[in-house]
């Protein structure tokens, strides 16, 4: 597997994690080698992060925490770039439109019946995965990180780390932050070099 494809897979994996809480199938996949071992290598040792949770309550606990952190109701950490960034703090804000335009300029479109808005974290990550699957998109990838994902991921992840009561989501947030940082570095080198 080449590096770009691997990067794309990881974006896709993270997108899945932020979109919804894991279901039984997904959690099992996460816990099965080689994925579980690879996750452990980057600080997300599931045995460790899930160790405090009784097996029969794991899915429920993860779902409740996912809800509390990323969905509400009430106070939560909005996984929408337009809300998270301070330029108006609006759902479907001007940033949402910019993200949509960016995606459409890469000939990627969000269906009209999509549950998620273009600037939902999971959609932005999916977009990066889609770019990774295409040749000649390094500049687009770099620009998207610069203009969008990279602008809010560090603070967002830091806040998740502070707020979450589950090691699973702390590890996920740390993984996300570190990965995006590494991506920025990689793409900066590749596009300037």
């Amino acid at each position, binding site marked *: 597997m080449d590096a770009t494809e691997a990067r794309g897979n990881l974006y896709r994996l993270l997108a899945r994690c932020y979109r919804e809480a894991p279901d039984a199938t997904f959690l099992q996949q996460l816990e099965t080698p080689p994925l579980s071992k*690879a996750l452990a290598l980057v600080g997300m040792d599931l045995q460790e992060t899930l160790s405090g949770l009784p097996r029969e309550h794991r899915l429920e606990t993860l779902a409740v925490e996912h809800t509390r952190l990323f969905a509400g109701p009430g*106070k939560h950490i909005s996984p929408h770039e337009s809300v998270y960034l301070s330029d108006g703090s*609006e759902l*479907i*804000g001007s940033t949402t439109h910019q993200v949509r335009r960016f995606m459409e300029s890469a000939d990627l479109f969000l269906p009209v019946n999509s549950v998620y808005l273009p600037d939902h974290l999971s959609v932005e990550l999916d977009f990066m995965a889609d770019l990774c699957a295409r040749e000649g998109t390094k500049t687009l990838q770099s620009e998207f990180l610069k203009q969008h994902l990279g602008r809010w991921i560090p603070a967002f992840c830091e806040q998740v780390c502070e707020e979450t009561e589950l090691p699973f989501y702390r590890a996920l947030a740390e993984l996300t932050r570190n990965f995006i940082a*590494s991506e920025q570095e990689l793409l900066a080198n590749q596009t300037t070099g």
Partner: protein
Amino acid sequence: MTQRRDFLKLGAAAAGASLTGGALVSAAELKKGGEDFSPLSGAERTAVPTTCWQCVSRCPVIGYVENGRLAKIGGQPASIRTEGLLCAKAQGGVNQIHDPDRLLYPFKRVGERGSGQWKRISWDEALTELAGRLGKLREAGHPEKFMFHYGRMKASSSKLIKSVFLAGYGTKTIGNHTSICEGGKWTAQELTWGSHYDNWDFDHTRYVLNFGSNCLEAHTNHTSVAHRLVRALADRRVKMVTFDVRLSNTAAKSDQWVPVRSGTDGAVALAMCQVVVEQGLYRGKGEEFLKFCKFTAAPQASQKEKLDALKTHLASYTPEWAEKISGVPAETIRSIAIEFASSYPAVVISYRGAVAHYNGNDTERAIQMLAALTGNIDNPGGRCKAVGPKWKYPKFPGKKPKAKKLKIVDGFPGQAKLPTHHLSHQVLKMIKDGRNGRPDIYMWYCYQPVYSNGDVAENIEILKDEKLIPYSVCITPFYDESAALADLILPDATYLERWDWEDMVSPNQVAEYYIRQPVTPPPGEVRDFADVCCDLAKRLGFPLGVDSKEEFVRKSCELTHGVKEAGGFAYMKSHGVWHDPAAKPKYYSYRKVVKPEALSADGVVSDAATGVYWNWKKTKAKSADEARSKGYTHTKNAYKGYVGQQIGDTVYSGFKPDKVNKSGYFELYSTIMEEKGLPALPTYVPIPEHQAMKDNELVLTTYKVAVQVHSRTQNCKWLSEIYHQNPAWLNPESARSLGVSDGDPIRVTSERGVLETRAQVTPAVAPGVIAISFHCGHWEYGRYASGKHAATGSAEVPDEVKWWTDNGAHPNWIIPNRADPINGQQRWMDTVVQVSKR
């Protein structure tokens, strides 16, 4: 770089996980509609005609959509109601869609009720659970144990949800919120002139006499009415006098503000009636109208008998008597009465300042009497019967089940004698009491039981108690104080994301037909609850005949005369509004003579006691004999068969009754009230708790401001930026005697508890009164309303977005849920409080 390699390993390993389906597709895979938008064409702005919902006025508006995003809301120039104008609340509606704290998914409670622990669930899971519970009750023969409680549900939403879905299900345990709005005013109108709603014809009036209405800031038909009043005042120099405890902005724009003691408007109105009769000012138009009025027990009384009865009744209600009660000088009352009666056409207007009291029913009846005595009823320039559109809509297919009902929506036995608009603010108390049964499922829609009623602490306690309410469902676009206490939250569409046909009355007496359509699609998993009802009904085995509200609206457009011919649904979608260009303003509807064939139709009988012609077949009577022997007044639902009123030798369409078996007269002598042991003629009754007030006590009055509605607009950033704090208004005289200065923190104490706020010392409120607005003091409802941080964790709302920290105080914590003993209206303006510096 080690970590980079590890990331790649992880990425390679992730290939094994089934991560199908990224969010995005390439253009070729797009579903129909997606290709409408091209990033290359630049900003494209679409104007979508739709309808506001910020307040109950429901003004036609235009939403301007730019890049798939609602950029602004403007007026609808084609509307004959608003004439293209729009208030601040309507413009602030943009924020409803973009509220960063809005609900995007269904949520199920996981911790203890009210603990704030939730799990996002799918619609399928939510509806499976709900349909399971609803189905069980229905199959067990107890559909009435499903209580549905709505705050605002109008027009097509009401028809589809209430008349089709709930009727198809079989529950009549349906609560509204009219008793905390202005239900009392409507009951008084039903008793006098039949169906409720008075329109004030400012376009043609020469004089405006106002009792307790703040219609320039808040009204059930706000923009339509307010801009016409402004035009009358500014362009035609119409004189306006306002009686109010507070210098509202409406009072401020009047020629004269007359401060009045709280709850004594009825005494002033009666004294004005006394002046009109004593000085013969009824002669002319008033005298002509007397023919259509009932002032005595006998239906066919002569003019002289009527006038004699009036003189006797009003004799003691002199301006001097009213001065002692109201604090308004007798000479002021007399001179305003004379001006009003001499300025035909003149309009007397009223609202909660006058009617949300213990004695509100008869205050409104006294005001109706003043209008009647001067001939200012349903005439150009006067107090008119409302005119609205008559939509036709698809009915429930097949036979509806016989509906059942828990007797918990009309208050405790004897609490209100004629609660024609129910006692919604007693529902939770009745559930707690339990003697009339409790719902197993309590669902509320566009309603805020916790915050919008008085007795907030008790509301919370009852809603939290799983023994009292086993299962609760909240349907709302936003997480408010009530949603926080639900078991299941269903994310509703905002009004800018849904379909409706609309039907608010017209200020110019010509009906306007208009629709609401989505300006942008609902985000996330948000769904219009009416669409959800279509789904639920299917799951429960009684499909509604339509699959969505859109289909319901489309079919209604094809069924409705006028709209259909104009081009039906397609016309309405592109124009938003329609009215019959040939229609003449409707006045004097009561003068129409009933055709002889209508009187000889099958089932029509005449009633000697009242002079009413009525069709017993449309009532609960089982035979003509039963109808005749019981008579019109005492046959259940007789008003539904009303045909006309005999006056002299002619049968007139008269004042058609609604909800009560009133005759077709303009009834100032009410047999219905008399039979309930109440005074038949409008009478002043003092407010009991105001009679023995101590020196340090004040009457708490509440009010609304121009940029907010009671509870549902505070999440709008633009509006809460303008109005977010509400210091309590105190007259300098009251403040001095309490030792309170402007800006002081104060404690306002009622028998229900303590409210901490600040004092604003101002002569704009009468002595003896403390005025606290609604709107403020939310503790949920998102960052702009509640003053809470935006998100969990450390990030606060940036200052440049929300710069204010004080979000005010909510008076409902200290206002008890009480009822006008006649009509059940919540007594918003009667609470006695003590005020001290803290």
